[in-house]
């Protein structure tokens, strides 16, 4: 090493101007985090005009002809189309069924829009359709209307699917984050991060042996089991894009409560923990497709947990935290070592770290 007396002036260490305004959509706008919310609030909703509050949540509860209907829509753009534990067909049914279930509704009818890319093999379309049908039968929902479009080669990713669904909300059920009060218990229905890691393990530029399958499943039955204990659940969320962290932050923000999570109580399977450690990701931010998080009044927590554990999709359910009066709107984790940290709303895409 050269022995120089020249001294870089660390005091003048400066940083560059930021990119604050993006004139175009970037991938982070679809990450389900803060950037997605800003896009909807600042760009989409003003165009729709008037208050469209429901556009901010996964499903809306509307009154029609004396009935309370839950109504939801979701689009599916997953790559690869088939992955360990499921396919885009399973996701397209279960995603919308689960959005309805988070309102307490059992999905009754689905629509299905297919956008196919020129050149995709008919066998692939057939397999996707079979997966759709099987998932719909398993979830007890009927696909009653649909649409198919084809786009030129290079303008799609094989198969995109949009599904919309409706279902009846039972009387007495009112699931909203605004109903959360301090003291409520936070319950998660099982291991987190499984779907996201299963998908990442199959991406063409990131093949690794992980030995786990997507948790993709329809949660209507599990929600029924929970509501049979008490209709007084406060709020349910299925933590898909943005993971558990995004769901907890949405609930904290809407309820005005703080949320405390005991990090060691959150079920994270070793393969997920290992993959996340390797990629520099946090399991709390990784997508799930067959899990829910519930805020439950403390007096019902044990009974609801028992009902969840008795259901096949809730056998690993666990109490992971509580709503508190401190730090309103903020989610805080107690770390395994006894420290604390803020669990922030994810911003955009989760990006693997360099080293």
């Amino acid at each position, binding site marked *: 090493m050269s022995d120089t007396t*020249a001294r870089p002036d660390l005091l003048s260490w400066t940083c560059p101007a930021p990119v604050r305004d993006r004139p175009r959509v970037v*991938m982070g706008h679809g990450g389900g985090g803060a950037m997605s919310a800003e896009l909807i609030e600042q760009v989409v909703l003003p165009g729709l005009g008037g208050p469209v509050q429901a556009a901010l949540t996964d499903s809306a509860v509307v009154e029609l002809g004396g009935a309370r209907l839950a109504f939801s829509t979701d689009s599916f753009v997953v790559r690869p189309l088939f992955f360990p534990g499921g396919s885009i067909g399973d996701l397209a049914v279960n995603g919308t069924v689960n959005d309805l279930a988070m309102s307490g509704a059992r999905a009754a009818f689905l629509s299905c829009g297919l956008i196919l890319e020129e050149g995709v093999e008919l066998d692939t379309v057939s397999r996707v359709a079979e997966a759709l049908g099987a998932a719909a039968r398993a979830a007890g929902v009927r696909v009653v209307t649909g649409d198919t479009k084809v786009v030129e080669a290079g303008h799609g990713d094989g198969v995109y699917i949009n599904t919309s669904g409706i279902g009846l909300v039972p009387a007495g059920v009112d699931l909203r984050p605004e109903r959360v009060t301090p003291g409520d218990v936070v319950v998660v229905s099982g291991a987190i991060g499984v779907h996201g890691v299963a998908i990442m393990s199959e991406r063409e530029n990131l093949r690794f042996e992980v030995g786990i399958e997507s948790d993709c499943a329809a949660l209507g039955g599990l929600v029924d089991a929970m509501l049979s204990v008490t209709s007084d659940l406060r709020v349910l969320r299925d933590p898909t894009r943005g993971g558990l962290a995004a769901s907890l932050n949405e609930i904290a923000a809407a309820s005005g409560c703080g949320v405390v999570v005991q990090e060691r109580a959150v079920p994270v399977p070793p393969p997920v923990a290992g993959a996340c450690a390797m990629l520099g990701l946090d399991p709390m931010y990784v997508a799930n497709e067959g899990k829910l998080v519930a805020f439950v009044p403390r007096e019902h927590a044990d009974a609801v947990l028992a009902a969840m554990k008795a259901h096949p999709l809730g056998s690993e359910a666990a109490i992971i935290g509580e709503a508190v009066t401190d730090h309103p709107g903020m989610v805080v984790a107690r770390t395994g070592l*006894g420290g604390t*940290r*803020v669990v922030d709303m994810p911003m955009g895409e989760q*990006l693997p770290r*360099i080293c």
Partner: protein
Amino acid sequence: MKYIDEFQDPDLAARLLDDIRATVTRPWALMEVCGGQTHSIIRHGIDQLLPDEVELIHGPGCPVCVTPLEVIDKALEIASRPEVIFCSFGDMLRVPGSGRDLFQVRAEGGDVRVVYSPLDALRLAEENPDREVVFFGIGFETTAPPNAMTVHQARRRGIRNFSLLVSHVRVPPAIEAIMQSPDCRVQAFLAAGHVCSVMGTAEYPALAERFRVPIVVTGFEPLDVLEGVRRTVRQLERGEHTVDNAYPRAVPPEGNPAARAMLDDVFEVADRAWRGIGVIPDSGWRLSARYRDYDAEHRFQVGDITTLEPAECRSGEVLQGLLKPHECEAFGTTCTPRTPLGATMVSSEGACAAYYLYRRLDLPARPGSRPSPAGAPTAGGTTAVRVPNREDSSVV
């Protein structure tokens, strides 16, 4: 995966903390060099658990944070060209250049791809012979060997449509620069374990002796960090200043000879600019003369892009421990991960981002905001020190 739960064990952590508390008698300022260590410390709340006497200063070892604005602007220019497939590790995509970032280039039609191994970029070059594939080679001694391997293989296999945009930096000259700073408060270093797993420990005894500081090679899991702190505090209390290896399961004294041979073959030591800090002599690598054809700066003629860095943020003070991230006026207000003023707020390994993401709850509402010291930061001051390029830089 082994080695995750084992190195986060709360009972063992409590024993290490007891040992540190029993040893320490007065205040000490330790710098953890690597951004990965900073991330682990803040994520697990390790700094909250240490006795008040032990202060952790977060060092400059975040590869994203120290890559100069000028190099990012070169990357943006190259990535915008229609013939180019520009490959990068993920977290570089969000780092702002002068006006945009790589995400924006992609949204405007640029072919920017995230890869997880630089060899994936080389494979893309083979599969796309009519395109120019460029890999963004940044980072420390950890990422340099695999990046060196790409051009080594490209040359051996005659792959002509591949090149590397290089901005590699080295840790020991940064330690030297920090210790030479007149306001330096650092009394010991937790050296970056993974850097040493490549380079070994031979570069450090001279630094420990010259600046009379303990240097303890330290890993990244909570127990690794605590063991590094424990050994460092023990040395400080005894008045010792030796190089110690607290991460022997990954760091043999000689490092990784194959990786070092690859570095020697492909790179030569050169002066490098660090983002905001300016040029530190001999603090990085560039492609050696025989590999110059694989230098993307040369191939795309972007060598004359120069960017002055605006004096916007105060990460230089943060990196010296003169200012904690939350003591900056901009922290959490005009500067957040969503709208970063500087790269230390962009990368998850950056000290400011780590504080913002994990530590907002505990932070006072900036009553302690400190004014900038007189004369700093200097407007447009890219570098306080310019040293002429020395072609005869000796290889460390």
